[in-house]
C-alpha cells in the first residue's frame, strides 16, 4: 500500500485541496457548517431525550453526554455518505487515466477529519466550561480517533467499491445509516450492561469508540487494555480485508462504471 501510494502523495494533497475548494465555493459561512450540524443535534437531543424522555445520563451533564457521541457519529455518517459516490462521481477520471483510485476516498474522508477536529475543539471547550478536570486518560482520545478513522475508511471503501457494481448501495445507505445510528449509543449508554453483552455490541466499533470517549473524556476513567487490543485487531483486520476487496475489484472499475 505504501509503495503504491507514495509516488502519488502530491496528488493526495491536491485532491484534499480540491475538495476544500469545491466545498466552500459560493458558501456564505463556510467552515461554520461543520459546527452547526452537531451543535443543533445536541440541543435537540437535550430537549427530546434529556428533558422530554428524561433518559438517564449517569450524572454526566446532558449537553456533554450527547455531544461526545455526536462528534464521532457525525464524522462517520458524513464520511460514509460522501464516500459511497466518490468512484461513480469521478467516472470521467477513472475511465481516462490511471491513478490509485482509493485516493478519492481518502481525500474526502480527510475533509471530514478536519471537520471532526474543529468540532473536537468545541468539545474541549465544553469540557472546560463544565469544569471537568484534565487527566492523562483523556489522551486516549487520540488512539480512539485513529480507530474511528480506520473503521470509517474501511466501511467507506467497501461501500464505494460495491456501489460501482450495484447502485443499490446508494439507495440503501440512507436507511442503513439511520439503523446504524440507533445501534450506536449516541443518546443512550450501554455502560450498565453486563460485560457479555458489551463484547457483542463492541462488534460495532462505533459503539466501542463512543462509549470509551465518554469514559476517558467525561468520567476520568482509563481504557481497558485487552478490550482495546481486541478492538484494534478487529478494526485492522477489517481495514486489510476492505483494501484487498477494493484492489481486487478496482481492476475492472473502468469496464463497469
Amino acid at each position, binding site marked *: 500500500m505504501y509503495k503504491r501510494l507514495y*509516488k*502519488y502523495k*502530491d*496528488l493526495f*494533497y*491536491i*485532491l484534499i*485541496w*480540491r475538495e476544500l*475548494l*469545491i466545498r466552500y*465555493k459560493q458558501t456564505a459561512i463556510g467552515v461554520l457548517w461543520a459546527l452547526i450540524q452537531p451543535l443543533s443535534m445536541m440541543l435537540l437531543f437535550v430537549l427530546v431525550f434529556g428533558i422530554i424522555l428524561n433518559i438517564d445520563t449517569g450524572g454526566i451533564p446532558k449537553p456533554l453526554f450527547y455531544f461526545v457521541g455526536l462528534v464521532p457519529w457525525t464524522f462517520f455518517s458524513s464520511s460514509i455518505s460522501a464516500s459511497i459516490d466518490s468512484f461513480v462521481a469521478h467516472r*470521467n*477520471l*477513472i*475511465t*481516462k*487515466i*490511471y*491513478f490509485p483510485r482509493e485516493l478519492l476516498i481518502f481525500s474526502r474522508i480527510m475533509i471530514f477529519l478536519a471537520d471532526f477536529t474543529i468540532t473536537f475543539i468545541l468539545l474541549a471547550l465544553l469540557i472546560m466550561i463544565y469544569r471537568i478536570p484534565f487527566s492523562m486518560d483523556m489522551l486516549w482520545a487520540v488512539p480512539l480517533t485513529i480507530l474511528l478513522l480506520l473503521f470509517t475508511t474501511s466501511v467507506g471503501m467497501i461501500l464505494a467499491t460495491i456501489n460501482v*457494481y*450495484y447502485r443499490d448501495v446508494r439507495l440503501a445507505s440512507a436507511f442503513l445509516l439511520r439503523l446504524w445510528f440507533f445501534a450506536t449509543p449516541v443518546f443512550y449508554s450501554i455502560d450498565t450492561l453486563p460485560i457479555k453483552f458489551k463484547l457483542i455490541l463492541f462488534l460495532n466499533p462505533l459503539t466501542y469508540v463512543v462509549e470509551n470517549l465518554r469514559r476517558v473524556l467525561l468520567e476520568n476513567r482509563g481504557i481497558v487494555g485487552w478490550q482495546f487490543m481486541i478492538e484494534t485487531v478487529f478494526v485492522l483486520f477489517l481495514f486489510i480485508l476492505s483494501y484487498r476487496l477494493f484492489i*481486487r475489484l478496482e*481492476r*475492472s472499475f*473502468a*469496464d*463497469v462504471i
Partner: protein
Amino acid sequence: MSSDLSIKFDRVSKKFSKSAIQHGLLRDDLVMFFKRNKNVDCLKTDEFWALDQISFKIPKGSSIGLYGPNGSGKSTLLKLIANVISPTTGKITINGRIAPLIELGAGFHPDLNGIENIYMNGAILGMTIGEIKSKIERIIEYSELSDFISTPVKKYSSGMKLRLGFSIAIHSEADIFLFDEILSVGDEAFQEKSLNSIQKLLKNKKTLFIVSHNKKRLTGMADKILILEKGKIKWNIFD
C-alpha cells in the same frame, strides 16, 4: 524486460459485454468472485473480443501510428496501455510514466478555474507540486489561455478545454504519450504548434502512440503503423 523496451504486449485479449447491466445475478457474481479458475476463454451471449491475442514490443523512442476502422479496438488498446482497463488474458509490461491524451479535458472539474485544474491534472499525470509550480507559466502560455486562466472551466469552450488539456500533458515529464484522435486540437495555428511539439517529443526519445483516421498525418509522424481490424493486428511499414 530489457530497459530499451517501452511497451510490451504478450498475447493480450480484452473481452467486452454489450449488455447495459454490468453485473450478473448477485448469486453468480459471488460465485465468480470466489472461484479461482475462471473460465475466461469462452464468450457468454452478448460478449465479444474487442482485442484478440495481441502481441508486440515497442522500443523506446519510437512513434507508432494506430490505424483502423471504427470499432476495431484502437481506443481499447490505448486504454490498456494507459492501465485504465486491465486485460482479460495476457500480460502488459510498461516501462515509464504515461501521459494519455484521451478525451482531453474530460477530467477537468467544471467549478474550478484553469490554474486549479492544471494542478489537479498535472498531479494525476504524476507530476509533483514543485514540478507543476515551475512549469505553470509555460503551460498557461502554451495553451494561449492567459486571459481566462482564473475563469471556471465550465465557462470554457470545448476548444479551450482541449488546448489546456494538451498543454498540461505535453509539459508532463512522461515517457510514453498516447494521442487519441486529438491531432485536430484548436485552430490551424494551434494545430501547427501541437504538431511541432509532437516532433520535439520524438527528438527527446519519447515513445508516442498516435491514433488517427488521417493516413497522411500518420505517415508523416509515425515510423511504424499498426493496423487493427476487428481486434486483430497486422504490422505495416507505411509507404
